[in-house]
């Protein structure tokens, strides 16, 4: 059977950076377009008002600057998004990738402003935009004024730098915040156990892992336990694995390395069933709902405007056939046809001959 390889084309989440980029490329055309609308005067008043607003925005330096800064940020995030949508990945790897992108964003914060600024200034000159400005100083009402002078940006560059830092800081903090959840911590804990890394100076005890995978429940008044792992066995197998690694002089720094090692040394993998079981369990934990989202595109292709009244079972059968078309193509149809014919008398009368001949 030919193996199906998925070439995933991301549809929506990557549109953002594309959208920003097309805007940048069309900057001049847009300027002309809006001035055209304002000058023509044949559209209604609200459209003209809107066009004038957009035109002013486009003329301003700030809009251009933000556009370039956003492209820089979104580009990095979207690299990450593309990666996350792969099926063949596990959650700690995803986590590492997210943190790496976060680091690159931090780097962008500390080093990237100059580039962005230069790029924006250059672009603005080319397009003939207004010069960068500091915001107008607002006069504070007397009853709120404490007497101290409000902060004033000495140069426009400084003002924009503040804006730039604010955005990047928010992105990095919320990225870190969103990913420091309980499940993430536990999984990192398990990964450290697998690769034998130390956490806070000591190694992760096998008990932590074994106790998570033990389920205690009450049945007929008796407390029973269902275990995935025997603690002692797991400890032994893990120890053996680390010893084998040491002996062979192989270093592992992530779960992926362990998987690669087992790929090459399948005999070692079968030697340590408890250890491999743990790895498989960690790999089983899904990291995204992409498969589900993918199935929705199938849904949209199958259940269309003109074909919207089919029953649920038919829809289900169709979508399974469509999604698993690789299996469907090599399916042995003869027994299915036979079963279909035998279900109904009329069909037997009509097709019996062909069924007989095949047999």
């Amino acid at each position, binding site marked *: 059977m030919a193996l199906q390889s998925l070439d995933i084309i991301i549809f929506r989440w990557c549109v953002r950076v594309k959208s920003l980029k097309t805007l940048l490329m069309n900057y001049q055309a847009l300027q002309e377009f809006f001035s055209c609308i304002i000058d023509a005067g044949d559209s209604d008043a609200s459209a003209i008002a809107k066009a004038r607003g957009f035109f002013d*925005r486009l003329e301003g330096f700030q809009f251009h600057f933000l556009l370039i800064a956003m492209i820089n940020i979104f580009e990095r995030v979207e690299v990450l998004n593309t990666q996350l949508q792969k099926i063949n990945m596990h959650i700690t790897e995803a986590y590492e990738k997210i943190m790496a992108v976060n680091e690159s964003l931090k780097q962008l914060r500390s080093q990237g402003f100059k580039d962005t600024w230069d790029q924006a200034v250059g672009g603005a000159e080319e397009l003939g935009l207004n010069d960068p400005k500091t915001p107008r100083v607002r006069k504070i009402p007397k009853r709120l004024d404490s007497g101290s002078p409000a902060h004033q940006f000495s140069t426009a560059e400084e003002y924009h730098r503040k804006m730039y830092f604010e955005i990047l800081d928010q992105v990095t903090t919320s990225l870190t915040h969103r990913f420091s959840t309980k499940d993430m911590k536990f999984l990192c804990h398990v990964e450290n156990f697998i690769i034998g890394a130390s956490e806070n100076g000591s190694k992760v005890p096998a008990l932590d892992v074994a106790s998570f995978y033990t389920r205690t429940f009450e049945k007929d008044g008796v407390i029973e336990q269902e275990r995935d792992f025997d603690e002692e066995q797991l400890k032994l197998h893990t120890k053996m694995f680390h010893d084998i690694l040491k002996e062979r002089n192989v270093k592992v720094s992530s779960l992926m390395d362990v998987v690669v090692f087992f790929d090459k040394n399948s005999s070692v993998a079968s030697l340590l069933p408890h250890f491999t079981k743990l790895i498989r369990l960690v790999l089983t934990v899904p990291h995204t709902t992409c498969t589900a989202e993918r199935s929705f595109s199938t849904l*949209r292709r199958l259940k269309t405007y003109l074909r*919207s009244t089919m029953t649920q079972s038919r829809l289900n059968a169709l979508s399974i056939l469509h999604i698993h078309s690789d299996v469907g193509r090599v399916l042995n149809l003869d027994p299915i046809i036979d079963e279909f014919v035998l279900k109904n008398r009329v069909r037997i009368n009509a097709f019996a001959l062909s069924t007989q001949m095949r047999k």
Partner: protein
Amino acid sequence: MLQMMADAIIETHLNEIKTAGFYSSILDETSDITRREQISFSIRVVKDDFTIREIFVGFYETKDTKSETLFKIVIDVLNRFGLQINKLRGQCFDGASNVSGGLTGLQARIGHEEPRALYVHCAAHRVNLAVQDAMEKVFCAKEFLGVLRELITFVKDSPKRLAVFKDLQSDNAPNLTSFCPNRYVNLFYKSINK
């Protein structure tokens, strides 16, 4: 006929899931063109050689998306395929409160049945939410994105305006693409490399 073919396919996949032993579930909802709520159910397994498979098993129609109803559906589906819930080791949903809620959300209900089923909030959704959050909090960014969206809609909204704009565009410039920060529906096309 279709049903039988589909059954045969599911049969082969079920064998795969059962030999793998442990599995985890992936669920998401959407509404289809007839405005009915559809739930998509997939199963992720790891084979003996550590290859990961995510298998789609079906769509399920539901009247509401309360966690109670969803829970019933999950149990029903697992029963129908003869999968035991005590082999479930992971669950992944989007971040909606009906599934991710800590007390009565779907993940809590499943977690009650099987505490070893570790709940994971879809990473791609999370990245998106993080960026979105950040953009909401910084005023100038929020304003910028709002103007941007309006601007693109303004141009694309009317065919007449779009035609005027097309005339002004330079020859090889790309078309404007709409910007949609609030829709974090990620849609993919699955295509087969030939």
